[in-house]
């Protein structure tokens, strides 16, 4: 072994630089320039120190939540651009190679899928739960604030590997599911699958820890009187999602770890020879993969539940049935994984069982849809942006659910599996389901987090563009799928496909505009922040505890821990004239000090992942040692918390109450006018 091998593994200039296609070179340059620009700006405005001490090392669940969402938005941008590139390729690749080499196209669908699932959707929902759930249950923080920061570090490390892979070397071409034997050394000897393995592994470990943290928080940190059946529905969905994470992420970890053993140690788990069996991988992957889709959708269901009830000014209809439906979905989600490979050799009877199990999930989901509709029935509905997303969701998700039932029929699946019919189906549930839910959550909780409302007009523009873009981009794919266009196709020779791919490309263009609109939405809102301030903290006449405090909330959330006597506690308080009371006494509050452990473990994760990918063993070992050393060192730190004295809590709380007394309450009709300062007219209807 030469020194060069030792130092750089298989990293060479030819292997590393993305010159295999001009477009890849351009993409890499954008990443590099973007990263440099961020560095320059941070330096110019002297933001490094606040970034480090107030954000990256913060253990405050609210800040961690916000960082998760920022990560998700950054990754969303990359993944949407990649999606548009793919649609553009198919628009021009009738009887022609198009503008993308096949290998590059394959990287695109792999990175797009991997990013959207692991580095957009997961961080997004984790961030929203992180922000809202502890406030809703009346907690001061999650149970394990440090672990929370570690989860973020690991997830961000995975995302960083994805970005590095764009600049150094190339990514896997094996799709987001990374099926062997294609991803085995025999067929993919380069670094692509290794990048995929380590990015996904980091993210799955981060999500397992997140699941544990959230579940324990919900079980153990609820305010006095907050019985499980008094929790806001969003917390129920957060609980079910967390439980799913605890049980469903390990199969993914096992799948990627065994694949890594095949690739690194010459094992024979999934190889063609030596007794390997790819079906083991496929079972493991979907044992994770199916519950994963409910991990993704349940929090969005929770957001919609809050939105429907708030913007209809009514208690949620059928609360208990919604809870039971959520639980039923969570349990059933472990019994249907086989529908992802109906065509892979089991008998008709086995397929029938799993097909029926799959269709059963439609029942609890249907229950939910009716509950939401009935929540709106005779409510005082305001078509605010979150509600628009929720309405769009109901209409379009119903279509996506229906095509899911169609796919659950093994006979039909034999016809359309592996076509873009499936691609249409899962985007139909993911975009109007998950993504709309997350965008609704942003509009809904943003004023709580930052103290001002987001711009309504731009919010509506986002909604319109994403809805229209989605319909144009994906409805044609149902037709194309029925016509037989396989998924992941780079070039095709049937003229009949052409019109549909063109319409879909138009839709993708709208979605790209939608992405820009998201940027404009945030940008314009920040500029106009002074017109939309809501210091009183309750802009939507909210029903649950998170609206009972200032916006943004103090670091310790509640000046005094609330006592809960029923569902929708804050609305009860407002109607009974019990909101915003001056407590008799305050107590000292203990809050966690910041810690560098999370970012350090993130860096260790990047070193490990990168070193393993490129066979730079010293780097991988260094990363491992760094992580072990960090954890041990942390266990010797004596001071991990700090006390906010009761006097200080009193001062802050009374200052806010004093401010409240000066605000004029706003009625529902003034909700989006500047006169809405976050103090709602308590009229209950």
């Amino acid at each position, binding site marked *: 072994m030469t020194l060069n091998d030792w130092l750089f593994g298989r990293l060479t200039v030819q292997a590393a630089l993305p010159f295999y296609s001009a477009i890849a070179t351009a993409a890499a340059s954008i990443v590099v320039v973007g990263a440099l620009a961020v560095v320059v700006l941070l330096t110019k405005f002297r933001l490094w120190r606040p970034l480090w001490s107030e954000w990256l090392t913060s253990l405050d669940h609210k800040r961690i939540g916000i960082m998760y969402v920022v990560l998700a938005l950054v990754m969303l941008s990359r993944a949407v651009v990649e999606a548009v590139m793919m649609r553009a390729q198919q628009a021009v690749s009738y009887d022609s190679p198009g503008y993308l080499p096949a290998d590059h196209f394959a990287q695109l669908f792999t990175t797009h899928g991997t990013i959207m699932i692991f580095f957009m959707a997961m961080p997004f929902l984790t961030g929203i739960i992180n922000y809202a759930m502890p406030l809703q249950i009346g907690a001061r923080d999650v149970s394990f604030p440090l672990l929370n920061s570690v989860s973020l570090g690991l997830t961000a490390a995975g995302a960083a590997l994805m970005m590095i892979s764009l600049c150094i070397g190339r990514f896997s071409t094996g799709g987001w599911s990374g099926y062997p034997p294609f991803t085995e050394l025999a067929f993919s000897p380069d670094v692509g699958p290794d990048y995929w393995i380590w990015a996904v592994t980091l993210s799955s470990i981060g999500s397992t820890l997140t699941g544990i943290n959230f579940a324990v928080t919900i079980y153990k940190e609820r305010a006095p009187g907050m019985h499980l059946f008094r929790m806001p529905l969003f917390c129920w969905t957060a609980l079910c999602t967390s439980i799913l994470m605890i049980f469903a992420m390990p199969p993914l970890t096992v799948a990627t770890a065994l694949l890594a*053993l095949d690739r690194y140690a010459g094992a*024979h788990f999934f190889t063609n020879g030596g007794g390997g069996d790819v079906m083991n991988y496929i079972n493991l992957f979907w044992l994770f993969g199916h519950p994963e889709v409910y991990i993704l959708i349940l929090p969005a269901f929770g957001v919609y539940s809050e939105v429907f009830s708030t913007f209809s000014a009514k208690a949620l209809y059928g609360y208990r049935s919604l809870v039971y439906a959520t639980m039923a979905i969570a349990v059933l989600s472990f019994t249907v994984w086989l529908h992802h490979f109906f065509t892979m050799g089991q008998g008709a009877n086995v397929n029938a069982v799993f097909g029926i199990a799959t269709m059963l999930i439609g029942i609890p989901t249907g229950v939910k849809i009716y509950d939401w509709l009935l929540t709106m029935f005779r409510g005082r509905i305001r078509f605010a942006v979150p509600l628009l997303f929720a309405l769009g969701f109901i209409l379009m998700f119903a279509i996506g659910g229906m095509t899911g039932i169609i796919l659950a029929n093994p006979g039909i699946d034999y016809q359309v599996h592996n076509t873009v019919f499936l691609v249409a189906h899962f985007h139909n549930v993911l975009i109007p389901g998950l993504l709309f839910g997350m965008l609704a959550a942003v509009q809904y909780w943003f004023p709580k987090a930052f103290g001002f409302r987001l711009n309504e007009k731009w919010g509506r523009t986002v909604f319109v563009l994403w809805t229209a873009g989605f319909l144009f981009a994906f409805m044609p794919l149902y037709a194309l799928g029925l016509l037989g266009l396989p998924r992941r196709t780079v070039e095709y020779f049937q003229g009949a496909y052409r019109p549909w791919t063109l319409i879909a490309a138009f839709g993708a263009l709208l979605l790209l505009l939608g992405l820009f609109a998201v940027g404009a939405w945030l940008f314009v809102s920040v500029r106009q922040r002074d017109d939309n301030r809501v210091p009183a903290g309750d802009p939507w006449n909210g029903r649950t505890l998170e609206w009972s405090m200032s916006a943004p909330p103090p670091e310790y959330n509640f000046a005094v821990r609330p006592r809960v006597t029923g569902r929708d506690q804050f609305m009860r308080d407002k109607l009974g004239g019990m909101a915003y009371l001056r407590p008799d006494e305050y107590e000292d509050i203990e809050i966690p000090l910041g810690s560098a452990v999370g970012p350090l473990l993130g860096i260790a994760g990047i070193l490990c992942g990168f070193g393993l990918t490129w066979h730079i063993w010293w780097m991988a070992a260094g990363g491992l040692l760094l992580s072990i050393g960090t954890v041990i060192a942390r266990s010797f730190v004596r001071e991990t918390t700090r006390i906010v004295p009761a006097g200080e809590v009193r001062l802050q709380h009374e200052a806010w109450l004093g401010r409240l007394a000066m605000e004029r309450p706003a009625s529902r009709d003034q909700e989006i006018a500047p006169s809405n300062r976050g103090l709602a007219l308590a009229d209950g209807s």
Partner: protein
Amino acid sequence: MSRHPGLNLAHADEKAHAEAEPLLFGFWVFLMSDLVLFALLFATYATMMGVTAGGPGPKQLFELGPAAIETAALLCSSLAYGMATLVMKYERGRVWLLFWLGAALLLGLVFLCFEIDDFVGMFAKGGGIGRSGQLSAFFALVGTHGLHVTFGCLWIVVMMIQVLVFGAERRDNKTERERLLADRVQTRILRLGLFWHFLDIVWIGIFSVVYLQGLTA
């Protein structure tokens, strides 16, 4: 509300008790997730049983003697750890606590030595991880357990140092600060105990499913 953190804190110190609760509960949940991981490795092993691809099988590779010694070492280590927990609970002094933790550590290391020797022997007989599907599954399952034991040993070492640095006795400590640190050490030792006994249970599964089954079938 009922609370079960497992240590003698409830009557002594309500606050410490309340703080211990999410920690221990959270650790149980973590173990549950870890158990899923082992369950899947067991399942993988089960589907790969007999897939020797022309290579050596269990009868040629496994030896009951060392496996039995490993089992004994690990179970005794758990016993020693149990003693450590009792010493901690009844505050019989640092020396005894360190003695039993040390004993648990030593037996853990004995286990690891025999296991590594086993692995080396299998490699020498042509039974490496790359020889067949079954051997891949074997090394994944048994190796993952071995890695857990390795980390457990490291953790015991760290806890022994912490006992020396922070102490684990509540009674003698004066300031609240010191008391807090001692509490922390106690709950850590408790959690490590859960982990250590958990690895026993997994090993019993391995001993029966892998070794006994492989040698008799």
